[in-house]
């Protein structure tokens, strides 16, 4: 019972995060490039695609397979997708060059890229570290898949956000100084 509660909680939280992201994506996306409606639809399309990719990655890294884990895995992948994929999908759509630049090469240009790139990487790395306590025999409820992984992902995401914000501020500050 407790587990199903947890998973439903994480589903709710993933939708919350998703909505926040869509809003943020909208704020970031420049109105002259694309409309809000387009951004929202891109985000909605990006959500399942990202969820699928995240699920594949998690399975490759050893996420448990089985019907009893199905619901939990889905919730987790939706959360991960909304942390990593949706923002970029909202902003860049399916533009391969930008995706390649941000995710494959990790060479962000400008504050917008940083805002997209660092939190996403932070979430993935956080989730990776979050998986560490899972095999230990402490017998705590939070060791279950995917609770600690979600905590790790959210933690890494927040760290990435703070980092990108700081970087963006520093960059703009530097530029302003130069301009003066």
């Amino acid at each position: 019972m407790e587990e199903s509660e947890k998973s439903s909680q994480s589903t709710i939280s993933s939708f919350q995060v998703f909505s926040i992201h869509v809003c943020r994506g909208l704020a970031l996306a420049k109105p002259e490039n694309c409309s809000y409606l387009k951004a929202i639809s891109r985000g909605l399309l990006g959500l399942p695609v990202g969820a699928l990719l995240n699920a594949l990655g998690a399975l490759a890294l050893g996420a448990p397979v089985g019907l009893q884990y199905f619901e939990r895995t889905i919730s987790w992948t939706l959360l991960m997708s909304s942390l990593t994929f949706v923002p970029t999908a909202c902003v860049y759509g399916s533009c391969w060059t930008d995706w390649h630049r941000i995710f494959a090469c990790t060479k962000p240009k400008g504050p917008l890229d940083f805002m997209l790139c660092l939190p996403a990487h932070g979430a993935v790395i956080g989730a990776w570290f979050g998986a560490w306590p899972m095999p230990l025999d402490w017998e705590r409820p939070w060791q279950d898949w995917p609770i600690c992984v979600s905590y790790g992902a959210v933690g890494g995401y927040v760290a990435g956000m703070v980092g990108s914000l700081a970087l963006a501020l520093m960059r703009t500050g530097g530029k302003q100084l130069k301009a003066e």
Partner: protein
Amino acid sequence: MTPLTCTKLSVITITGVITQIIGLSLFLFGFFPVKPALPGTSGSESFYPPTCDFVGNLSDTTLPPDQLKSLYQELSGIPPWFDRLILLVIDGLPAEFVLGKNGKPPNKQFKEAMPYTQSLLASGSAIGYHAKAAPPTVTMPRLKAMVSGAIGGFLDVAFNFNTQAMMDDNLLGQFFKIGWKMVMLGDETWIKLFPGLFKRHDGVSSFYVKDTVQVDQNVSRHLGDELRKDDWNLLILHYLGLDHVGHIGGRSSSLMVPKLKEMDEVVKLIHSSINQSQGNRRGRALLMIVSDHGMTENGNHGGSTYEETDSLALFIGLRKHAVDDTSVINQIDLPPTLALLFGVPIPKNNVGILVREAFDSLKEDQHLRALELNAWQLLRLLHAQLSGLPCRNFPCDAFYDHQSSGLSECNHTTENMLCCLYMEAAALYTSWKSKRGFESSSNKDYRSAAAAYYKFLKSASDRLSRRTTYKPVKLLALGLATMFISSVMLSNLMFCRLREMYHGGKKQALNLNDSMNGWSSDETFIVSVVLIIVTCMTSSSMVEEEHYIWYFFISTFYLLLLRKAAQSLSSVGLQSSFLLQKGKSGEGYFRICCVFLLLISGRILRGWHQGGVNWTSLPDISKWLEQAGSQYVKPLQLISAILVISIGLFALFSIESKGKYFQMIRLSFLISGLLVLLHITKYQDFTVSSTNYGATFLVQIIYAILGATTIGTVVALPWLIPLSTSKISPADNTISPPFFPSIQEKFPLVELRDSLYVIGWAYILCWCLLQLLLQQPINTTPILLLLLQTVASVLYFVRSGTHHKEWVEIAGLYYLGMAGHFSLGNSNTLATIDVAGAFIGISNHSTFLSGILMFIITYASPMFVLLSLVMYISTKSMAHLVKPEKANTGDLLMMMLGFPCLVPLVINSILLTAYTVVLLLMQNHLFVWSVFSPKYLYVCATTVCTLIGVFIVAATGSYTYFVLAKRKQKACTR
């Protein structure tokens, strides 16, 4: 700094390896001392004082049991006090439950759960002891200790993990010799330990830990019958249920009180039956209630805490004894006590001493005689174990010379002191004997003689048992330091090599891909893997679940490879869409496919065996298949075997050569492959073990063909391969730099590559076929997947050209081997070693041969990867790294073999050294014997495996090279 030459490199490497071996042996010798044990069994000679020539009196071994029994009685001078023994073993019962702790009575609910036992204790008809058990507190070694009185070192335990017949001198063997009839009900460990000794037995398995009821009912169901019968002298009852209760719910489990009640009922039943039969022809019976070990609060055991070592020993049937505080004895004190109570010689390697209260009912002279026998037995053992014992020769000549030696040398060394104590006791005994007539003084003399004997026995026993746990600090430190030096040497060598290759030759590196410079993500990852593994090994849970770390790392590594492939994919054509499958980016897609193959097969391998300790009960593929039945396993096994063989043969055929020699190699591998398939279909079955003569013969033929073909290929191929005038190259080779022909004139690069390719595949195929033969049927598919993974990694690395540094690739392969080790069902406990496979194809029992087979089975995967390095070398084009103008033999050889040999050695030496430090730090840890020491044995075996593998790679590479170079030279001069 002067550049490394090939000679220098190899000399330093060999020195490093030798240093490592020396250090490891020093450490092992210090940490796991091998205790010298006396061979043979005690006979009538144990009733005579020890003499110098330890040739036992062999005449009594041929005596019939009855005569032997009376001979023993006559010699010992102690009439047996009892005729029958009932040994009630309650597995895992802590003495605290019955006797309380530190003078306090036991927990109220436990006390109320065992009313009958408690009343026996209160009335004084039962005498209870806290019998301290020696670690490891696991059933089998404890049972051995309880019947032999010897404390095994860790290695004894480790090498006897497979419960096999007990060969050492023991109580049951002694009873058997004097013609006792024995009956055993309960844990089948007894039957495995003493096959053929029991007249009747009904074994229960301790495998189903969840079962707490049926295991005990299966014992109790025969109890009434057996108690009514009078044809046995020894009845062993071994109840496992209480241990199972502990494993499920710990000490305070709700099942504990009912279980204790059940045990109390059993005690009541036995005791009342003994009382009824008192005085009739069955004779007096002694009921002993013992537990083999205790349990922690959580119900686990294996370590050395008070809770685990606090086992019970309860004598019921001795003369009534004054109720006093329960005292502490050692578990190993039981065998000598029982031996002398029942009139058999004390087992030869016994370290225990007589339990004082058990002999209170004996007459004074009998008591002293018993003490003397125990003292003689311990003295014999001391002679064997302590070389510096000064009274080594005294029993031969000056036995009564003790007056002259005096007490002056009593306090010098432990050896002197022991000797002195013994002589004092012996002197008091003789003086008591001489004064026996005079009643007045003899009582005082008796007491002082007994006290002197106990003093000697206690210190001798302490000395002997400390010997097995004592650790020489200097030796350990020296061993560790040596290992540390060797690993520093090797790592330093590798860093020099790295600097030379990637930073020294900057100019050269510039015209290669720019990812060659800088510290990329995969390199950071490879280095951090080593660091994280070392850190994790300090935690006992992580050691138990080590496979998760390796799986996690290896799949992360593949994901990093995927990212790398994706990077290069788009650098070829940025705007090219996903639809473009062919053309320039085809290479990139091929690599991505390789990575996907790696990821998928890695995930299947991970799910194949649920290894480790804590989560073994979770479902996995192998369990699922075994449940589904052999109609699914068999076809799967056959398909996998056929696929493995065809992949290997395909690789051998892919080299375009029409030489007869190549055809022969292919043919013989084909034949042995077919023979292996024949063996699989005909003989490998779940039920029938391959003891069949035909099966053994077939397997021996396969061994012979495989061995001959592989060795033949390695030795003869470099001599027979045609020197190239036209280009022959394996299918996988693509890169040929512009200056390639100029080197080719000087060096036989193409031939070298070809012959290494064939030799490498010969190794791989030979190893795979061996594994198909030896591994359990369920492990056939993992072997196929491992082969696929190795081939896919090598293909990926070949296609990616210079995107990855060579050392990263080799380290990745090495990690792949470690992950594969666990996916074949191995773990860090000794229990998962497949012993059954170690006897395939061996017609007569040979420890050495089955040891080798066991090693081959256990280290299938790491060794496989190391052997495939030969193939990997052949696919790498090293030509672009050699400067044509100043290339010489040494340079080329160093390019070729440097990293493939160094990287595994360095990784392994770092892990070995780090793990040695961990073991030293953890030597007082709770789990040192159950978790850390087995892991250390695995680490040592991995070291052996790495050394052998690297040696094979280096030897093959240099042999092939030198032979070809010589031939080339001859061809040029001609």
